[in-house]
């Protein structure tokens, strides 16, 4: 079994050897630039909801870059990509069930 696992690990390592190093520097620079944009927006005194929407959008782009390139998910097989990402998104989305309650408290005016 150990030999089998090592053979698979060697295949994965071989795949890594074909990645261009420059792509990692490009992703790193993109992440830094997106962070700078986020900080710049903070100083623009935008309405909170619009600000939140843009920041969440930028964070999702940064998360996709990290998962796709740094965590190599882009190079995994489709089954791995879909099962892990769909289950994660579904579980996190289910937690949103609490937000209507938070809005209810505000509209009730509870102190």
């Amino acid at each position, binding site marked *: 079994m150990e*030999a089998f696992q090592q053979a698979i690990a060697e295949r*994965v390592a071989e795949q890594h050897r074909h990645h261009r190093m420059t792509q990692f520097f490009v992703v790193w620079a993109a992440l830094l630039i997106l*962070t700078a944009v986020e*900080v710049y927006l903070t100083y623009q005194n935008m309405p909170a909801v619009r600000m939140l929407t843009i920041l969440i959008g930028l964070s999702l782009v940064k998360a996709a870059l*990290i*998962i796709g390139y740094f965590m190599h998910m882009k190079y995994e097989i489709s089954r791995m990509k879909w099962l892990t990402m769909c289950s994660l998104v579904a579980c996190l989305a289910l937690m949103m069930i609490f937000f209507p309650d*938070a*809005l209810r408290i505000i509209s009730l005016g509870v102190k």
Partner: protein
Amino acid sequence: MSEAALPHDLPDVPAAYEPSLFGTYSKKIGMWLFLLSDSLTFGALLYAYSYGRISTPNWPTPFHSESIVNATVMTAFLLTSSLTMVLAVRAAVFGDAKKQRLWLLATMACGMGFVILHGREWSTLIAEGLTLPVFPKLAEHATATEFADVAKTVPQFPATFFGLTGMHMLHVTLGVIYLGIVALRRTFIPILLVFWLAAWLGTPASSPFHYGAHILLVAAIVCAIILWLKPKVYDSADVEVAGLYWHFVDLVWMFIFPLVYLMSAKIL
């Protein structure tokens, strides 16, 4: 593309075993499963913070420019550590042990920079009155005004702030230890003990880090037991799996930074 690059059947391996369902080795799948469960932990904490923010009309925005600059530098440290981690994995798959160790040490240095900056920020906030009932009382609290008011009027803010960022700081600290073991193996245990003593004796008894430093001692004992039970030379697969954990820590911060700091900034 990847389907073709990584076939499920391995012709050079005896056909005694079934092909890998996910096209990769089981250690990596195990780490992904752990990270999925851990992301739900952070998801719950972030949702708790957001719930508090939505349901509290007078939610404070206490972070001045200095805090935002500090958090931005912390973010740059983490992003750079992710790059050095990728380079460590790359060195590992090419069999360059020296470069692999150097990049891992660079990653650890960035992680330690993050923890030190975060610890300094926590200490400043606590001294200015943003504190929790479990933290020791300080003499400065008697004269503290702005942050003390926040802690009294909206206790959800310090509770969720310290809970969320504390959990993340713990993950970064454990990540640095994990990488230290992968890079230096047994040599890292005495180094870790030195860090523990420095953190314990170097912080005042009134600081939450004074007792929090004992996490390093517990980690040193656990790591010593693991290395004693299963001594091994870590290969490229181990470095890649450690890298997954490290990138995850970076990933979580990409949501904490805007939601907690940027959305609570007080820019004059």
